[in-house]
């Protein structure tokens, strides 16, 4: 069941991160002693590459496995199968001290600015912790680095002495960003970094992330369910549904020529302030909720909600196919030369 299409599986030095056929299955308690234990297929065969200095976006509905993918890459979730290469080095099998040292190169920013900072530590200590834990520099260097990080993310030096609850949501997110930057990592995983923030504050944080990327050549794995934000931030995007990538393309192709029915549904569902977009005739609606990630349907995972589904869709699982330079889709009805399902094109 190797779904990655062959064309893309090539090790390339300009890729910082290469994920191959990643699987994370969570076993559930057995309900029947004779049956095998049911499991949640949270991530079920995800592959992608991320070029150095770019932003790779993961979008999808709640429960599609975005966070689990991110945590697996950070080695914070148990990996069932697959390969993850960072800087060409396989990190799936690392453990103990080598893994700890590898953490210098990858960091994460969380969604919830309230639970991601230890309420009992001061902001300065929080930002300094990665330097202490990974033995970066001496005391003086660490002090200077913390001060510089505070300046970089737009906080004032005396705010180092404050506790997390004394900051607003946006300021807390800045502290989280400073912590992630501390060890000068190559990869920063941003798991919905602005979803919990007010719109006006979102813009501040998004601009900050882009500025830092330019300044330090950072590579982001950027997770969001807000397509507007993804369009603004990401260079390459993978759309996830029930643990799988169902469409993967660069920014211009994905938004300019979405092929998968689910991607189209997602894009049409976004309420828009632009009347032209709002009154588009080809907006498609899906009904119902995704099926359970425990008992997966045999065919296409989207078939139960897909307005175009045919008998074949319900019987046979579509492969992720490369249909144009850098554009992969997992749908039977998309033709090899990259025409969308006929109903969609009409």
């Amino acid at each position: 069941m190797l779904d990655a299409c062959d064309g893309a599986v090539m090790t390339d030095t300009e890729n910082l991160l290469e994920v191959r056929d990643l699987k994370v299955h969570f076993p559930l308690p057995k309900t029947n002693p004779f049956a095998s234990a049911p499991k949640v297929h949270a991530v079920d065969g995800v592959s992608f590459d991320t070029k150095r200095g770019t932003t790779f976006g993961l979008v999808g509905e709640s429960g599609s496995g975005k966070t689990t993918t991110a945590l697996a890459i950070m080695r914070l979730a148990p990996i069932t199968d697959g390969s993850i290469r960072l800087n060409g080095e396989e990190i799936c099998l690392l453990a103990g001290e080598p893994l700890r040292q590898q953490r210098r190169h990858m960091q994460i920013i969380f969604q919830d600015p309230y639970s991601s900072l230890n309420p009992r530590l001061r902001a300065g200590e929080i930002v300094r912790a990665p330097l202490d834990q990974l033995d970066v520099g001496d005391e003086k260097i660490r002090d200077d680095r913390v001060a510089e990080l505070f300046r970089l993310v737009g906080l004032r030096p005396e705010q180092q002495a404050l506790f997390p609850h004394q900051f607003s949501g946006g300021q807390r997110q800045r502290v989280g960003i400073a912590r992630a930057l501390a060890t000068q990592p190559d990869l920063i995983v941003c798991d919905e970094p602005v979803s919990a923030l007010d719109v006006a504050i979102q813009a501040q944080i998004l601009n900050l992330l882009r500025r830092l990327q330019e300044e330090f050549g950072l590579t982001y794995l950027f997770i969001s369910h807000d397509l507007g934000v993804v369009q603004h931030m990401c260079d390459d995007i993978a759309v996830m549904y029930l643990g799988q990538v169902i469409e993967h393309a660069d920014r211009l192709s994905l938004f300019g020529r979405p092929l998968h029915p689910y991607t189209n549904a997602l894009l049409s569902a976004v309420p828009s302030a632009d009347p032209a977009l709002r009154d588009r005739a080809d907006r498609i609606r899906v009904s119902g909720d995704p099926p359970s990630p425990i008992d997966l349907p045999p065919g296409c995972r989207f078939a139960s909600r897909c307005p175009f589904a045919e008998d074949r869709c319900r019987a046979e699982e579509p492969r992720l196919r490369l249909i144009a330079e850098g554009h992969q889709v997992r749908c039977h009805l998309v033709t090899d030369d990259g025409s969308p399902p006929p109903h969609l094109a009409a």
Partner: protein
Amino acid sequence: MTALLEVNGLSVEFDLKDGTVSRVINDLNFSLTAGQTLGIVGESGCGKSMTALAIMGLVPMPPGRVADGVIALAGEDLLGASESRRREVRGNDVSMIFQEPMTSLNPVYTIGDQIGETVRLHQGLSRRDARERAVDMLRAVSIPAPEKRVDEYPHQLSGGMRQRVMIAMALACQPQVLIADEPTTALDVTVQAQIFDLLKELQEQTSSAIILITHDMGAIAEMAQRVVVMYAGRKVEEALVDEMLTNPKHPYTRGLIACVPHLEAKPSEERKVLTEIPGVVPSVAELGRGGCPFAPRCAEAMDRCHDEMPPEIIAAHDHKVACWMHVMAP
């Protein structure tokens, strides 16, 4: 068309622990006609939910109280009405969908019981009729297999289904006004689209008025005809939706529209830096020092803005704004 709901000069105050009083809503005016949807937008803490609670008569008192103003439903003054009359109005004529779909359903009763309870209370239906009604309502909000679902408990439903149940409960007594306080914040876009379609459809059938509270201008554009922008407990701008989106006058509204990366059908290669509204919403304690509440964050602020509260003026046809910029150069 006469107004169905009128809110005039509404002010809500809270007694704080340190003995001071904070005005979380200040001199708010708007009105709403039958079949219309009014959007209320603004940042967190600007008083959107509190406005809804004031209309429902559910401001927690103490420490809060409606300090001033008139709320009239079809000409009847609600603030002066007796508590029993208010209870009657609540649920019967005005009902509300709350912000958190997960916590506003009672986990120990079936959803049928919870919908049935509302109609039994307000319309005196029998137990059997109430159940019938609950099934009908579930069908109306397009929940599949309503006869089966009616006996399920809230935890057996997905977030989207729970929000539909909330809508079914709110609509069970066919209210004239439905207040939806961020009804889709916790939901996925595809489910949000379903809920919005549902609300529009039900509104067409019953011609009830809807107040939609949100921080998403896109949702407003999609759903509402009229929009009120609130900042720090005050209305800063009010207009028809298309006018507001194409021709925003208040610097805060302009910021709100510009700071969001809007989804474009044909994105271009280059990406602009997003417009920022600097700073954060002032805390309640910092309010009421005279001057425009937005002045500390406003790029256009003049001396006068810091000292005097801008009056609300009519800037264009059916377009009101409270900003000194437009008083000086109309």
